[in-house]
């Protein structure tokens, strides 16, 4: 049974490499494509860790809906690729001060924890059992999430609509003065 660790380490390397490529590309369409690969790797990881329903949801929501939303906005805004890149210290200082100590401390905390070196035992829960569990114990949270999605829909429509005000700031100032 050494197949599952091999699959896990392959998926971990796949996720880390595709995410690392995604956060360093300048072209935003390339970023979205690499992130889709990263989220597909995460979905396979969920499947390995015994959550097939969540793996399907990860593909549908993350790799499908969210990334396509990003792609729509990127193509709609025609984002210029003139973002300043490079290795200036002023841009990388926050990452060095915050990111690397976080990584070191989390590694220390995880590996010094005595009970965390246990080998995970394989177990899986199917969609039926998972849905029954969620709607027996967490039905209120499901309703709250649905209300949150409705509010997000309204907020996105209100914020993104615009256009019915005056056309440009100069015209609106002229209108206020007259």
């Amino acid at each position: 049974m050494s197949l599952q660790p091999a699959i896990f380490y392959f998926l971990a390397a796949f996720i880390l490499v595709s995410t690392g490529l995604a956060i360093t590309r300048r072209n935003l369409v390339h970023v979205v494509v690499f992130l889709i690969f990263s989220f597909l790797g995460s979905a396979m990881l969920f499947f390995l860790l015994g959550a097939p329903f969540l793996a399907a949801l990860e593909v549908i929501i993350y790799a499908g809906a969210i990334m396509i939303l990003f792609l729509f906005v990127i193509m709609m805004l025609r984002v210029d690729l003139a973002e300043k890149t490079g290795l200036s210290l002023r841009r990388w200082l926050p990452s060095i001060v915050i990111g690397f100590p976080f990584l070191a401390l989390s590694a220390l905390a995880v590996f010094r924890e005595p009970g965390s070196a246990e080998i995970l035992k394989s177990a899986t829960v199917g969609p039926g059992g998972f849905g029954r569990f969620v709607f027996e114990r967490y039905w209120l949270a499901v309703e709250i999430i649905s209300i949150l999605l409705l509010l997000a829909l309204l907020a996105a429509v209100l914020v993104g609509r615009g256009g019915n005000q005056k056309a440009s700031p100069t015209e609106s100032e002229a209108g206020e003065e007259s």
Partner: protein
Amino acid sequence: MIVPFNHVLMLAGAVLFLGLICVLTRRNLIMTLIGIEIMMNAAAIAFVGAALHWQRIDGQAFVLFILGVAATEVAVGLALVVAAHRITGSVDPDRYDFLRW
């Protein structure tokens, strides 16, 4: 039978670190949102690993709510980015620093 639990947690920590780097170094509102999505995905990985470690389904149920919150966050965030782009003409956060339009 699969792997030690701390390896799963370290994978989640490394993915969260990459998302943090993305938020902190990229001068781009869309890349900031993408970094937040990466960090949420890392939290979901940690929750699924913990659900398997303690043999409880609660962790997987929480990942369902993480997915819902990620979807709402990206919808509202991208609407705000579109509004910011309409006002300033760019997605550079440094250009988006005034309170009237």
